């Protein structure tokens, strides 16, 4: 599948992936503190999912940056194209695994089971569709949590997952118009910024 990217946007997407990865690692670190105190499996899944997601996004950010720096303005050489493909494949696999962990985290204790993702899911349209499918469940659970608690942090988490879902949905249409790619990237970064705002609120010192 062809992904249309506006030339002026080259580099910005890499920066967005790296920034998103940094925020994912921050969430993972905070969830690790939670797990260290509670030793609950669901808290470990939260920590692991964001760590895996962060690694995938960081790999993608670095490889797209490498591709950009080693290719001429209009032509990708073989090495650069390989690095780009490698980055995307790592990202596909790690984010699917991370979303799977998030879904398992929200499953009731008695229903928790290991998720085996079909191999064929690691292809572009399948990846996006499966991501949307898994994230729909995660968004539903975070929306239910917001409806129950009515607190701003829960709203920010729900918004973050919804924006991540929107990123995958928009990514399905990146072959139609280059601008869709830009909106999709902004949607992904906004989702992670929403998580950063939530973390800032959570870690605010109060008496």
């Amino acid at each position, binding site marked *: 599948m062809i992904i249309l990217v506006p030339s002026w946007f080259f580099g910005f997407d890499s920066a967005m992936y790296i920034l998103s990865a940094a925020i994912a690692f921050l969430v993972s670190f905070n969830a690790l503190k939670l797990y260290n105190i509670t030793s*609950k499996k669901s808290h470990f899944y*939260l920590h692991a999912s964001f760590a895996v997601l962060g690694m995938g996004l960081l790999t993608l950010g670095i490889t797209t940056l490498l591709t950009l720096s080693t290719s001429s303005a209009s032509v990708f050489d073989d090495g650069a194209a390989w690095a780009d493909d490698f980055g995307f494949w790592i990202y596909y696999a790690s984010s699917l695994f991370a979303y799977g962990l998030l879904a398992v*985290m929200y499953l009731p204790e008695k229903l928790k089971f290991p998720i085996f993702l079909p191999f064929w899911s690691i292809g572009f349209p399948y990846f996006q569709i499966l991501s949307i499918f898994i994230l729909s469940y995660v968004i539903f659970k975070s929306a239910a949590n917001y409806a129950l608690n009515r*607190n701003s942090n*829960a709203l920010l988490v729900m918004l973050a997952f919804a924006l991540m879902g929107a990123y995958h949905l928009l990514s399905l249409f990146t072959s139609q118009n280059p601008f869709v790619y830009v909106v999709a990237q902004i949607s992904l970064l906004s989702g992670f910024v929403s998580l950063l705002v939530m973390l800032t609120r959570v870690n605010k010192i109060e008496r």
Partner: protein
Amino acid sequence: MNVKRSRLSILADILKLVRDSGGMKPTHILYKANLSHPRMKKHLTMLIEGGFIEAVEGKGIVYRITKKGDKFVSEIRKIEKLSEAFGVPM
């Protein structure tokens, strides 16, 4: 709704009570934390052994929070908020 409190949340509740009051008698902890006497005693012993509270003798015993306990309450509050935000109970 009857929700069984975890040991962690009981300890955090006791610490918050002791911290907010600036010092609390065991009978007040018993009522405000909604605990039976043996359970309260067990939890207070754990908190004293961990260095989170200290017993001060005066007109009877009063429990006061230590610096370590104060820091722990702040950490617990943060992780409680994180766990609430994601909807994964502690």
